[in-house]
């Protein structure tokens, strides 16, 4: 009696693991089928403005994206897929739910094994694949990145603009008058893309408001519960706290909960980076004063467009040369401009 039951359990466990393994990388399994296959198979002359019209070739592209549990990255993946559909190319996504370098490397290797004609890669360790990029580019495969190498070896680095200091002036009216304190919630230390985007803004605000004493930076490790507790403590310890700058979605969500809990909404200006759904809700109800959001939809779109543009312009192949960087600027969202259609690109989507 025990043996058949054990066999049944083993089979059930195997089935669950198989299903979960397939479900773990949903984008990679669905993307190929979602990409159109109706594009003309024959070669066509390169267009003058190639990406304006659907591509004449069903180029085989790959995108290696990580941290898909973050709406920012999920939105990039969605917009990349949508742009591929628009341009009539075959895009296969290789995604991982975390920012683990090893998982990204496995996905990158899997993508390269399938010999794509162009590849979009966004590792969290910028120079992780610099050598492989060189090999691919020598073989005529353009590489576009979201986090660029230094010195640049990829074809193009299309990234979110770091100079958010220009937005500081616009948020100054939202910060209560008078001397007090301010604090920066940094998520985790040592993340260059995050710091280069958020610290210039913080420094610009501190410069414009010298009467606000900066408290030591707080790092929660992106743990929402820990961050909520920390912000509660900061509010309690610093009754003159006038400004909280949250550098990321989890800290923004946590700070909003803490400000609401302490009944200080409106008395403390909360400026948060990113525009995840919870932050957008808090902006609507007035707990968050303003959001500084990247444009992930534009990023994914531009990155795929750059690959297709290159392939259309270079039908004969040959080694790929680097072509510089392209910056996509961030935007400032407030309760008043949130519904403006022009700002839709700054709102991170929960799904495609």
């Amino acid at each position, binding site marked *: 009696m025990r043996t058949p039951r054990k066999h049944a359990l083993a089979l059930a*466990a195997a089935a669950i693991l198989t299903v979960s393994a397939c479900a773990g990388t949903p984008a990679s399994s669905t993307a190929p089928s979602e990409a159109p296959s109706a594009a003309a198979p024959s070669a066509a002359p390169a267009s003058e403005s190639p990406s304006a019209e659907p591509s004449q070739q069903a180029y085989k592209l790959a995108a290696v994206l990580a941290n898909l549990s973050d709406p920012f990255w999920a939105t990039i993946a969605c917009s990349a897929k949508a742009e591929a559909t628009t341009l009539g190319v075959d895009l296969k996504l290789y995604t991982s739910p975390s920012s683990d370098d090893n998982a990204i490397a496995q996905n990158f290797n899997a993508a390269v094994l399938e010999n794509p004609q162009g590849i979009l890669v966004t590792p969290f360790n910028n120079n992780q694949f610099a050598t492989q990029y060189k090999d691919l580019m020598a073989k005529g495969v353009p590489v576009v990145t979201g986090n660029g190498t230094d010195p640049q070896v990829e074809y193009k680095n299309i990234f979110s603009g770091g100079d958010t200091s220009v937005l500081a002036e616009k948020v100054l009216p939202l910060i209560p008058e008078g001397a007090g304190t301010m604090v920066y919630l940094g998520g985790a230390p040592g993340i260059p893309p995050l710091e280069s985007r958020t610290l210039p803004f913080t420094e610009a605000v501190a410069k414009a408001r010298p009467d606000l004493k900066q408290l030591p930076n707080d790092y929660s490790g992106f*743990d929402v519960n820990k961050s*909520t*507790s920390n912000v509660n403590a900061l509010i309690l310890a610093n009754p003159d706290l006038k400004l909280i700058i949250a550098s990321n979605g989890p800290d923004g969500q946590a700070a909003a909960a803490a400000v609401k809990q302490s009944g200080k909404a409106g008395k403390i200006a909360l400026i948060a980076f990113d525009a995840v*759904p919870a932050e957008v809700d808090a902006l609507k109800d007035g707990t968050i004063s303003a959001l500084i959001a990247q444009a992930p939809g534009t990023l994914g779109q531009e990155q795929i467009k750059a690959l297709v543009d290159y392939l259309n312009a270079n039908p004969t192949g040959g080694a790929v040369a680097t072509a510089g960087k392209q910056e996509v600027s961030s935007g400032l969202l407030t309760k008043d401009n949130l519904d403006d259609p022009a700002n839709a690109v700054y709102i991170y989507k*929960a799904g495609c």
Partner: protein
Amino acid sequence: MSAAASGPVVGASMPPADDRARVPEPLLARWLRTRAAWVFLLNVVLIAVFTAISRDHVFFSLQSFQSLMIGVSEGLLLALGLSMLLGAGIFDLSIGANLVLSSVVGAKVIASFQAVSGDPTSYADPGVAILLGFVACIAMGALFGLINGLIIAVGEINSLIATLATLGIGTGVAFLVSGGSDVAAMPPVLQERLGLNMVGGVVPLPAILSLGALLILWIVVRYLRYGLRVQSIGSSRAAAERAGIPVKSYLVSLTVLAGVLASLAGFIDLSKFGSTSLAGHNNDALAAVTAAVIGGTLLEGGYISVVGTLWGAALAVILQFGLVIAGVSSFWQLIAVGFVLLLAVLLDRAAAQRRERAR
């Protein structure tokens, strides 16, 4: 209690030891022998220190204690579930995934009542939506626990490996159901009436729920046969089986209990933030086991300290909160938290050695 009643019968010819002249040990002395007491005292010392060094002694204020109670609510529920499992000699690495998945399912059910997708003000009847969301959340947690229990008890797979697998599966399913993004736009009343609600303007509702669960489990462990049997399974599973205890049923019931507690924590999480928090629970299992073990529950099974678990869970929260209030930098906070947790265990170890020498 005399040895005649409880002591071992060495031989028929040997008279039982007459301990009538021994003075019964005072209650306080007995209490001080427990690890829970040491951790409680450490908490008291920490509160005194943070009160002394905080500006205007704000650490010792109602608002501070409210924040602490909210902070400890979720961790306590998870630690209680894990304490019960540890008592029976099994482990659960998947409680964080269970919390996240349950909250996602609950949030999805609530969101399905929106008249306008993504609009938190468009609920026709937020009360019904929240109630059904709560039921779905708890049912998901129980189902998750049931699956864990069947794999461990019926499949006879090591609990560490089994829950390592369900940790991945649960996290993946949560991402699939949520679309990889936090489910937001919950009715504002959820946060106002539950997550951030102060009963009588004093005690956070999440803390009352957690303490209610603690009280029930304390009664179960201290006075009911169920608690005794759970600990006997942890002491010696083979002996428990030989004594006729339906071990497999007990293990399944324990994993379901831990699953329900995790889902309750998940619903508190949802109500506290007004949205799910997919990324905030990666270390929940480790934090829960730390709280349970520091509080006196035996890692190897056989003994559950319910009250100790409360002090263990509170220790981490008090420490973190106090260090921020004291203005200690984030990097030093990590070091300080590690040291104090180590100190808690060393103090208990030193006390145990003193007791050994005194015998």
